């Protein structure tokens, strides 16, 4: 009834945070945050320990907020449960797959878990796309870091998610890998879907994203478009911190 394409914008992947806060073992990682994320592409920036990964895990429904709610199209994601999780993908530095299985086996397994009608064909298609076709039958344990990263990306795209959350997708990728990632994201992100990625490299990030969110110590300090980013001088604030950072 509401699946016709012209309404896709209005019916897009909209996420809403209502006073969402997270504390882990008594430590406050994210202060209460209210925010509406319309369909589009966002860059999540901030120094190490600002709460970026935590925010992504909360949005993915992997971590439960200590207080507040995350709404997807106006409904609590914990109420939607599986119906939400099959719309979302999260890419983190953890593989989230089985190292002793082959790349193909992993993708077929997760394809089935996401209820794809023909998981094998889809898995092969994606392996081809991320350039792992010749490594499909090799165990993931033997993959290099960059290959694991690409496999994780393939897994994230398997079920054509409408909410795509990427935590440091460029880390560990070489130049070619980064270009490929950028290309794939261009195609994968359909209108009406929502993409959020964190990175330490705003230049590269802005080639994909059009808006940004800036977190510091669990508080959203600034958000807006590219012009706003330049005006706020966030690049300078990040640069000072980046040098001490891990990357």
């Amino acid at each position: 009834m509401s699946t016709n394409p012209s309404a896709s914008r209005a019916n897009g992947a909209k996420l809403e945070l209502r006073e969402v806060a997270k504390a882990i073992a008594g430590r406050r990682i994210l202060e209460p945050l209210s925010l509406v994320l319309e369909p589009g592409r966002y860059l999540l920036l901030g120094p190490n320990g600002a709460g970026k990964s935590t925010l992504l895990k909360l949005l993915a429904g992997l971590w439960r907020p200590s207080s507040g709610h995350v709404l997807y199209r106006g409904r609590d994601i914990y109420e939607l449960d599986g119906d939400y999780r099959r719309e979302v993908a999260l890419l983190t530095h953890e593989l989230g797959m089985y190292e002793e299985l082959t790349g193909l086996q992993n993708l077929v397994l997760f394809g089935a878990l996401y209820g794809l009608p023909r998981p094998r064909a889809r898995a092969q298609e994606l392996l081809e796309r991320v350039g792992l076709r010749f490594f499909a039958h090799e165990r993931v344990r033997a993959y290099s870091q960059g290959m694991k990263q690409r496999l994780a990306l393939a897994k994230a795209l398997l079920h054509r998610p409408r909410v795509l959350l990427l935590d440091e997708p460029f880390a560990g990728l070489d130049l070619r890998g980064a270009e490929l990632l950028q290309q794939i994201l261009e195609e994968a992100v359909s209108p009406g879907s929502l993409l959020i990625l964190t990175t330490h490299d705003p230049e590269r990030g802005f080639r994909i994203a059009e808006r940004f969110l800036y977190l510091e110590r669990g508080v959203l300090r600034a958000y807006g478009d590219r012009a706003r980013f330049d005006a706020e001088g966030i690049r300078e604030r990040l640069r000072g911190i980046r040098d001490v950072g891990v990357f």
Partner: protein
Amino acid sequence: MSTPKAISTARAEERTQRTRSSGAWAIALVALLVVTSLYMIFLYAPRERVMGDVQRVFYIHLPLAWNGLLAFAVTFVLSILYLKTRRAGFDRWAAASAEVGLLFTTLMLLTGSLWARAAWGTYWTWEPRLTTAFLLWLMYAFYLLLRRYIENKDKMRLMAAVYGIVAFINVPIVFMSIRWWRTLHPVVLKSSGFQMEPEMVQTLLVALVSFTVFYGLLLWERARLAQVEERVERLRERIREV
């Protein structure tokens, strides 16, 4: 400048005073109960005809057993409440109750064993109640051990709550299975075959009440200790952040 500090010192003093005065009340109550129950156990209750004076161990043994079980039941209920509400207070009291319950169970095993030596001539027998108590002891020792071995406090509370529930569910199953196991074998020893006279029942009731009060006091103290522990932890955390 110095006002906040003065206020906080005053508050601390007030707190210690309140603790001290309620502590004095508690000590008076405990003393009263101890004296009364000792009087009743040793002088008021008549000498048991078959077993003799050793039977008097029963007046502390049974309350210990009863309160051990009560303590674990409290842990069970609080664990469920913790899972429902995620309030750290429930978890704190659940853990406190398990620790006090473990102490009671330990003492129950010791007194039971001494009684067994006097009455049956052996320190240990695989009698259903003793065996159940022994398994109970193992389970709750594990509960406390588990809490120390998980770093992440939130995780630790969740895991402990689930185990607190699972362990208590197991109590009736273990008891029934061991009872059936033993009764299907030839019965060698028969316990508690003596007649209860009215004075004995009264003594037992007083002892039961006294031990339940002790349980409550120890529980309260233990939970308070845990609360202060957490407070110190938080303060340290704040200092680290500064």
